[in-house]
């Protein structure tokens, strides 16, 4: 019990800190892409360090703003809605494995908060529940435009959840388990004796469908119809201060959790190619034996590097593509992604039975 | 381990609450929700029996009940929407005529 609590605290602190600095990364990366400097003014006794204090300044600004509730809206529900979104996304991190086992004094600690035997379904269930934050905020603001925004947003989230779930079925077929630890375990094997058996090599189509559906779930630019701040009124227009900040923060948390899921399901999780429990065994011959602590350290660093890469990739996509129109968005989900994922399932079944 | 009759009593209480709610509410949507509560009470009982008899059949039946409930909700809500379009009301007493 205590052990699980400590692990959960470590995971959630890692998760929240990285999401906080993802805002900084997004500002800097967009600045580099657009040939600007980016946020660099926030300082601490004159030290600027590339604007690394900017997220803290943003947080202080959000917290000290007025906590506004529009007239005629239910105060309790109005406060509850952003916390619903935030909570269900934040809990998701507890299923992600950060490394294999850590031995301390003969006792074995699994570097994963909770290893459910329906892990993937649990993540899907939490994502399904986080929709209520969107619907509720649109409805409770007592404003026609936010209501429409909430309906638009929840319709998008539900539609793309189907494609998301179907794209994961291919992964469940090639790695026959719903447990995250076992899925990562299967990926430590080798294909043809040298290629790591990662999900991306077995399910390339599944990866593409998952990435697109997951980016639609994160409500960011190619798919940001729920918010669409420059053209249409989104569901959290009536929110200000810390509650608005929570919605923005939840978006970044979704980016991070998608990077974690991509890493865990398609890119071998914490596995470093050819690194085993006792060190490297290269396929071209030659071993490099390492003590247990260094191996675990390598695994955790590798996991973080992969997660950073996918966060970078998502920010890159977000600042490259323009927004879909709403009917294009729905057509893309229902008429392209879902048939494609069904085709992927059928093709996987045929290839596996050969 | 939790004794099975706890679950059965819970299931009975849920079912009765669904029934009473269905009888005293006057709008179609809440009545429909009460039907879902009654289905759910049956699910609780099935899961409890599956556990106590160590047989998976109960869980399979719950799986089918949930699927059928999804289909039923889609059609039922479509009908409620149609009733609202015709009568501009979802009260049961307003749709008492046989003619539309």
């Amino acid at each position, binding site marked *: 019990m205590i052990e699980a609590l400590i692990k959960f605290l470590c995971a959630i602190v890692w998760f929240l800190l990285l999401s906080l600095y993802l805002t900084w990364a997004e500002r800097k990366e967009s600045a580099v892409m657009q040939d600007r400097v980016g946020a660099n003014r926030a300082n601490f006794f004159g030290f600027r360090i590339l604007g690394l204090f900017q997220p803290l300044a943003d947080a202080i600004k959000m917290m000290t703003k007025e906590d506004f509730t529009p007239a005629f809206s239910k105060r309790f529900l109005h406060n509850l809605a952003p916390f619903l979104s935030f909570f269900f996304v934040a809990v998701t991190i507890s299923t992600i494995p950060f490394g294999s086992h850590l031995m301390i004094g003969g006792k074995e600690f699994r570097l994963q908060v909770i290893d459910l035997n329906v892990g993937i379904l649990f993540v899907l269930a939490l994502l399904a529940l986080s929709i209520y934050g969107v619907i509720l905020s649109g409805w409770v603001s007592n404003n026609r435009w936010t209501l429409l925004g909430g309906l638009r947003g929840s319709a998008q989230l539900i539609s793309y959840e189907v494609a998301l779930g179907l794209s994961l079925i291919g992964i469940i077929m090639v790695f026959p388990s719903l447990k995250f630890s076992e899925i990562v375990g299967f990926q430590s094997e080798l294909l043809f004796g040298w290629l790591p058996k990662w999900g991306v090599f077995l399910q390339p189509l599944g990866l593409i469908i998952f990435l697109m559906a997951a980016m639609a779930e994160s409500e960011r630019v190619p798919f940001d119809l729920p918010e669409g701040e420059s053209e249409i009124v989104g569901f959290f227009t009536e929110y200000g201060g810390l509650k608005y900040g929570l919605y923005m923060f939840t978006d970044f948390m979704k980016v991070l959790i998608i990077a974690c899921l991509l890493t865990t399901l398609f890119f071998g999780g914490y596995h470093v190619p050819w690194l085993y429990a006792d060190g490297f065994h290269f396929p071209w011959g030659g071993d490099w034996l390492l003590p247990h602590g260094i191996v675990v350290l390598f695994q955790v660093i590798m996991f973080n590097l992969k997660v950073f890469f996918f966060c970078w990739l998502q920010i890159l996509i977000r600042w490259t593509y323009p927004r879909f129109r709403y009917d294009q968005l729905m057509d893309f989900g229902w008429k392209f992604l879902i048939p494609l994922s069904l085709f992927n399932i059928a093709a996987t079944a045929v290839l596996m039975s050969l | 381990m939790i004794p099975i009759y706890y679950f059965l009593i819970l299931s009975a209480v849920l079912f009765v609450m669904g029934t009473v709610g269905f009888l005293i509410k006057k709008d179609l949507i809440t009545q429909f929700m009460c039907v879902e509560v009654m289905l759910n009470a049956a699910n609780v009982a099935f899961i409890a029996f599956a556990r106590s008899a160590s047989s998976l059949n109960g869980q399979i039946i719950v799986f089918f009940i949930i699927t059928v409930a*999804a289909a039923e909700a889609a059609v039922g809500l479509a009908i409620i929407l149609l009733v609202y379009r015709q009568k501009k009301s979802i009260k049961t007493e307003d749709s008492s005529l046989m003619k539309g």
Partner: protein
Amino acid sequence: MAVFLFILLSLTCIGSILGMILSKNQAHSALYLILAFVCTGGLFGLMSAPFIAAVQIIIYAGAIMVLFIFVIMMIDIRKGLSPERKKWILYPSLGIGLVLIIELIFILSNTLVPSKAGTIESFGSPKTLGKVLFTKYLYPFEITSVLIIAALVGAIVLVKKKEEK
């Protein structure tokens, strides 16, 4: 620990269903019902049915209730709400409820099966459940897909506005 969790979840479940019946606003009723379904999902998890628990939350709380809330949002709440209830219906229905619960508890206390000691570890896990579902219950499972398609098409045909002639 398990008994404590059971009491917590079942009390929340019963309380939220009471709230659903007593609240005058349908959207509030729907939110209470979502809470009740999530609690039932937790109870299924306690009863070594993790797969059914996940399905319960994904389908009931994640899909069916979203449909309910969509419909509630489309209907103008101020018009669609029933302000006054006929009082005479209350007491007979409470009486029916009382009779029903006494009857149910009486029946259940007579049919209690003694539970077999020591269920196996993998009972109710996705793997065992899937094996039963795709061997013994294959045809019912396939027929369910036809049912869902029929419901989908039926719902669309019903709600679609006819073109003006």
